[in-house]
């Protein structure tokens, strides 16, 4: 063994395994579940990989508090700055490429080369959304021609705290495809990771923590999707919910719960499948959690009647 002189272990001795404790990512910190529960995560073939924290609704509540706290700073940052921060995430992901290839291969049951292609596509997805932060306002906002002496301007503003039910099948590319647009638009997110394959999402938390993304902008919870999604859908301080990873029955229930405070709901889309996450995403997820603010401002010119004000 070449490691013997490095690790200090005696020649020929078997090295003890160092397992990773996967933890939640809430408010920039890595807590265990408040409930103390964990559940077993296996790979596609049923082999044990790790124990992931099984979050409770109190963890969900804490995550919303963290997301609300982070919203002012993140939505108030310039779009250009948000783009830089998101690009930094892509850089950090690139640096951890091997780790994610391994995790995605296990989680999604892919060969190493296919998993590598997925990770590359995921990094590219971050870069794609990073570029959109300071361009979306020109695309969906604008100066409106109105019949009066006014400048009339529409600008998009982020919705607020958004719950993201991440896709169950595409545990990494799918996850990033739904989370990145939410935060690129200036929202903050509470993400419920894929129930059976949460490890790439929990590792993404570690990447975000080292990428200049302020704590609380993205909060990652693992556990039973239904148990976490229901209180979040009913939560009065959540402004939107993306149902990408909710099955048809659960999606219906969540939509009913979300009606109470008129949350913006993005129903599961026809394109939310593994194959389609690889395709070019378009801007529909960016615009899903944007509100349009329109202002009327007097031009200051004299009116047609010659009167002034």
């Amino acid at each position: 063994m070449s490691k013997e002189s490095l690790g200090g272990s005696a020649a020929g001795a078997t090295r003890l395994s160092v397992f990773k404790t996967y933890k939640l990512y809430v408010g920039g910190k890595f807590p265990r579940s408040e409930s103390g529960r964990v559940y077993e995560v296996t790979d596609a073939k049923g082999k044990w990989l790790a124990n992931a924290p099984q979050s409770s609704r109190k963890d969900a509540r804490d995550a919303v508090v963290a997301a609300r706290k982070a919203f002012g700073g993140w939505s108030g940052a310039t779009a250009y700055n948000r783009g830089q921060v998101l690009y930094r995430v892509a850089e950090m992901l690139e640096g951890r490429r091997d780790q994610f290839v391994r995790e995605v291969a296990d989680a999604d049951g892919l060969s190493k080369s296919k998993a590598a292609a997925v990770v590359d596509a995921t990094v590219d997805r971050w870069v794609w959304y990073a570029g959109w932060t300071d361009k979306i306002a020109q695309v969906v906002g604008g100066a409106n021609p109105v019949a009066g002496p006014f400048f009339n301007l529409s600008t998009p503003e982020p919705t607020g705290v958004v719950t993201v039910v991440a896709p169950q099948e595409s545990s990494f590319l799918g996850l990033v495809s739904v989370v990145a647009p939410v935060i690129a638009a200036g929202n903050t997110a509470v993400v419920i990771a894929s129930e059976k394959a949460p490890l790439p999402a929990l590792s993404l938390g570690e990447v975000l923590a080292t990428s200049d993304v302020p704590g609380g902008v993205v909060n990652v919870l693992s556990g039973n999707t239904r148990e976490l999604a229901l209180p979040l859908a009913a939560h009065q301080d959540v402004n939107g919910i993306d149902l990408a990873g909710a099955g048809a029955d659960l999606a219906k229930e969540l939509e009913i719960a979300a009606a109470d405070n008129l949350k913006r709901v993005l129903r599961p889309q026809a394109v939310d499948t593994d194959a389609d996450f690889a395709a070019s995403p378009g801007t529909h997820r960016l615009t899903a959690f944007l509100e349009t603010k329109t202002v009327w401002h007097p031009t200051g010119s004299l009116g047609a009647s010659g009167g002034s004000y």
Partner: protein
Amino acid sequence: MRTTPPTKTDAATAASNAAPPPAKAAPGDFADVTASAATLRRFLHGLPGVDAVGLEARAAALGTRSIKTTAKAYAIDLAISMIDLTTLEGADTAGKVRALGAKAVHPDPTDRTTPRTAAVCVYPDMVATAKEAVAGTDVKVASVATAFPAGRAALDVKLADVRDAVAAGADEIDMVIDRGAFLAGDYMKVYEEIVAVKETSGQARLKVIFETGELSTYDNIRRASWIGMLAGADFIKTSTGKVGVNATPANTLLMLEAVRDFRAQTGVQVGVKPAGGIRTTKDAVKFLVLVNETAGADWLDNHWFRFGASSLLNDLLMQRQKLATGRYSGPDYVTVD
């Protein structure tokens, strides 16, 4: 410094931590203690030293109690009824004080079963405005006085401050002790100042603020508590809310022990008011557990226990809404201030 307790009463005080106090001593017994600066000093330094590690461990252990469902609903309503809803900012306006008064009377306008807060707490010049805002209800008006928060002014200035507040109709006076004199060991000055303020307050109940964050040690907090109680305080209060360290479970526990021991020896009950830094329902419930387990259920009433707080009320209301509706509430559903 530990000296031999000079009188029988002092010995009883010293033993009160370890064993139940002996037969009730008359309050008059303490006349000896406050006879001179030397006797007061000897008495205060004869109080048993505080086991800091044990105190903090006890406070932390009591904080782990799980209070759920109906007990939690009871605790939330009790805590709301114990709040001194406070605004003590240089930027306070009459409008803000009126809004605060309206909030004290109807903390949650969407649910009229919500109990009222105990009082609103303002600066002396806002007392009249606050009185108007809560007129016709049982919500009291408390006023800070005596050159709050530093307390750095001459005694007659402090007393004029108190007279102003009382004349404007304050039901309760929150005074600060002279921490400079206390830390310099001039206990008699602190004592006499409290006595003078008590006299000037007349019918108004007097809360004595120690600013525990500035007293450095737990022993000092215990001594200050005794000075306050001997001088006739109706309430002893932890802090002004204007320094880094405010109410903590440990310093409140220590003061609860003091009022418990004082009543055991004199029959006089004194209230406790932790103030500053209590922001969540969870914290408030922890304090209520401390009260029940230390002083006893007699103190679980807003006549004897108060929270000095402002943002705490919103969190209590949000938790109350959660219990009523089953869904988590948010800051959009309570007032900003």
